[in-house]
């Protein structure tokens, strides 16, 4: 037995040696539970007011400039933009964050922002015009979402607290400056450090002005935030001192943690299990419109989909209600064109196709395809369970008008690669989940997905107009509308609606449904309000309060 113990202890030692190898071993790992300088273990500090969240959102980078993914859920509590957009229906369109007010020149070509005074970054640097200029320049140069600053000419420092943003063409800088991506104002020291060291952002760091700072980060496991005591907004009763986020990829585990009281909030709960919470008076369930919608591009370069009548026929042969019931488990609403409900320039007056097989058959007959008789290759992103669920409904329905569908799941990047590089051999129908980068679906959804480039196959710079559709009148209206957004909201919207009507009539794609976001909030947490303009944020910790 002694030898066995010896063997086991040797194995243990070998394993410890294994852990000791590797270059990172000399420095303490980033994710330790507490720095060694903390109070000795025997002392029990008073328990702070803690908010616990089980979140599905992973961190792909802590770099607020590069960020273009799910980490926005956390960065939004650490960093601030000049402005934040309020949810639709609010009295004010914006909450002034780092800018207290702003003026627009008459031609819409320059925006002057007056900054909040006395704000400091987490590293103690002052937040001023120089810092704003440096952040916007960095974002325009190398952000994940640099393209939102395409209209930018330069950023001018007028005085310490006044900054002027000059444009090459009129654009709504107020919307751009409140974007979730590419618009954070970051400490200039951090930007310099990141330029010198490419691994600067590899650990959880805070160089913003927001209400919380990152206390510790254990990859794939946990992030702990603590109050920025000097936050310019101040602190009131019931606001959380600490926020502990457990990163939990499994939806069922998140649900169990919420039900068992291990956490106060959980994101992305399994929608099929929501009834448990709906029937429990201890929780409120919020179902809200979201930023996301599903479209299905037709390949308009190919016979017979080049015929508008055929595309209209197929648009009438989509079982919208069933698709929402099965694909979205009921949590969706049929789209009014390409813009998700609640986002500028959404309008409920535009035409919606209904599920009408007789009309579909009649249109096919008009187009010279009586009884169908052609086939369609449909691709969708294999990783998208919603598309996987509703794609067969399209096949069934099209079969009833004599159109045969071959369904082909692909990895999203493969699907996109095929569609943008080789339209001649690409799919006939392409299912896509889309969302605007910032709260202007005119400049994003309507432009990215339907604005035609100059030459066949008419791809524009975003490479998302994958129906290869070209309509000069639509393009012209889009140009006019885009130029108006900065100075004349209503005028711009009217142009967008006109363009939408052409788009929907021409039916280069199917507009399936806008998704809904679901949040379960226990009564012990107060102050929750979903803001659809920031779909990846879910919770602004500063707004939440522990109930008495």
């Amino acid at each position: 037995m002694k030898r066995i113990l010896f063997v086991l202890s040797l194995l243990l030692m070998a394993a410890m040696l294994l852990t000791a190898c590797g270059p990172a071993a000399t420095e303490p790992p980033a994710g330790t539970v507490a720095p060694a300088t903390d109070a000795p273990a025997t002392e029990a500090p008073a328990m702070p007011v803690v908010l616990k969240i089980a979140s599905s959102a992973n961190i792909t980078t802590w770099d607020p400039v590069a960020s273009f993914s799910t980490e926005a859920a956390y960065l939004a509590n650490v960093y601030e933009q000049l402005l934040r957009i309020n949810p639709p229906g609010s009295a004010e369109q914006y909450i002034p964050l780092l800018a207290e007010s702003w003026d627009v020149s008459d031609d819409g070509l320059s925006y002057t922002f007056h900054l909040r005074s006395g704000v400091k970054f987490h590293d103690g640097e002052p937040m001023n015009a120089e810092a704003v200029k440096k952040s916007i320049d960095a974002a325009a140069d190398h952000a994940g979402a640099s393209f939102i600053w395409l209209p930018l000419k330069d950023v001018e420092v007028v005085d310490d607290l006044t900054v002027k943003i000059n444009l090459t063409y009129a654009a709504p800088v107020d919307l751009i400056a409140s974007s979730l991506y590419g618009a954070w104002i970051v400490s200039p020291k951090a930007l310099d450090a990141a330029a010198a060291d490419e691994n600067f952002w590899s650990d959880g760091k805070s160089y913003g002005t927001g209400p919380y700072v990152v206390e510790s980060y254990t990859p794939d496991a946990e992030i702990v935030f603590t109050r920025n005591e000097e936050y310019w907004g101040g602190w009131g009763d019931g606001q959380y001192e600490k926020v502990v986020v457990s990163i939990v990829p499994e939806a069922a585990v998140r649900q169990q943690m919420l039900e068992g009281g291990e956490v106060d909030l959980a994101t992305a709960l399994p929608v099929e299990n929501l009834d448990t919470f709906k029937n429990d008076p201890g929780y409120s369930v919020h179902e809200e419109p979201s930023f996301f919608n599903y479209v299905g591009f037709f390949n308009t370069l190919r016979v017979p989909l080049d015929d508008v009548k055929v595309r209209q026929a197929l648009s009438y042969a989509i079982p919208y209600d069933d698709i929402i019931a099965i694909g979205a488990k009921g949590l969706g609403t049929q789209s009014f064109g390409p813009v998700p409900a609640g986002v500028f320039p959404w309008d409920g007056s535009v035409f919606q196709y209904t599920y009408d097989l007789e009309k579909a058959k009649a249109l096919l007959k008009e187009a010279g395809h009586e009884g169908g008789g052609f086939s369609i290759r449909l691709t969708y992103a294999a990783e998208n369970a919603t598309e996987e669920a509703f794609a067969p409904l399209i096949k069934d329905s099209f079969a009833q008008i004599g159109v045969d569908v071959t369904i082909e799941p692909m990895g999203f990047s493969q699907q996109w690669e095929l569609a943008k590089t080789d339209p001649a051999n690409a799919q006939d129908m392409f299912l896509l989940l889309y969302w605007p980068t910032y709260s202007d679906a005119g400049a994003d959804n309507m432009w990215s997905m339907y604005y035609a480039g100059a030459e066949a196959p008419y791809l524009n710079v975003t490479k998302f107009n994958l129906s290869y559709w070209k309509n000069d009148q639509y393009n012209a209206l889009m140009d006019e509308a885009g130029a108006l957004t900065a100075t004349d909201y209503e005028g711009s919207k009217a142009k967008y609606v006109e363009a939408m009507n052409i788009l929907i009539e021409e039916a280069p794609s199917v507009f399936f449904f806008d998704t809904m976001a679901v949040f379960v909030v226990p009564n012990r947490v107060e102050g929750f309000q979903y803001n659809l303009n920031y779909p990846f944020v879910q919770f602004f910790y500063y707004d939440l309060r522990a109930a008495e």
Partner: protein
Amino acid sequence: MRVLDFILRRLFTALFVLVGVSVITFFLSRVIPNDAAALYIGPKARTEDIERVRKQLGLDKPLPVQYAVYMGELLRGDLGNSISTKRPVTQEITERLPATLELLFAGMIIAVLVGVPLGVLSARWQGSPMDVFVRMISIVGVSMPAFYLGLLMQIAFFRHLDLLPLAGRVDSDLRFISPIQPITNFFLLDSFLTLNWVAFKDIFLHLILPASTLAAYPIGLIARMTRAAMLEVLGQDYIRTAQAYGIRQVVITYMYALKNAISPTLTVIGLTIAYALTGTFFVEVIFNWPGLGLFTVRSLLNVDYPAIMGVTLFGAGGYVLINMIVDLMQAWIDPRIRLK
């Protein structure tokens, strides 16, 4: 001399195995039709940005050149940067390894402490209800999938009995009550060394369910192996002689018989450690255990090929190492192997 010779020979073959593994995983991960540069930069990137990243990652070069570059960096201990986290893969692995090993060792200790005595008891009373019971347990242990067993245990011990925590490595309140001082990053050991009993208890409770889930398969295997080896040894003449001398049965079973029967069990233990390393993948996902398994699953889902390569090479290295150690141990325990 003979031992040194043996080790050198094993090291040489190990090198072959590792190079083979690296070639296969490298080329497999590159032929999967996926645009790594597009994945790296994220959704909605402009074409020119994707091309910039492609150059930056060296993905524009021919495959053999890419492989040579990769191996060159590997020799300097650099496994490249993960596509999804943008951090060095080496750092990702070393940071998560203690969590996985802690789970692995806890599982293996349970497996040995439960499996060996079960096997001995079952052999000692062959044919008795005890034997039937042990054989049943081993079959269940070996055949029940870890993800199913793990979920059952969660439902039983968290949901209904409320005895043990659901998931994770520590309670999130622990940092405020009694934070762990990291020394080895084996939390149980660290809290023990710093006499932090509050943390020790919490970590211990968190370990029970995942470690037991992980131990189920090895318990079955070890019990069956021990039983078979013990049966063979117990039937031998020297055992009968010992019995004739009137030596107590306990002494005979555990001192004389088990020692000779343990060699095959040891091989099994060594192999199951390596097997259990992949078992941690399921267990870590179910119990949200922040180790290598969770990282690997995430890397696979994101087609994060530098991370997949890194973990595979690391796993293969560990496997080879454990096998070698087991071989050496056998020679140590059983002089017959040494003499051959």
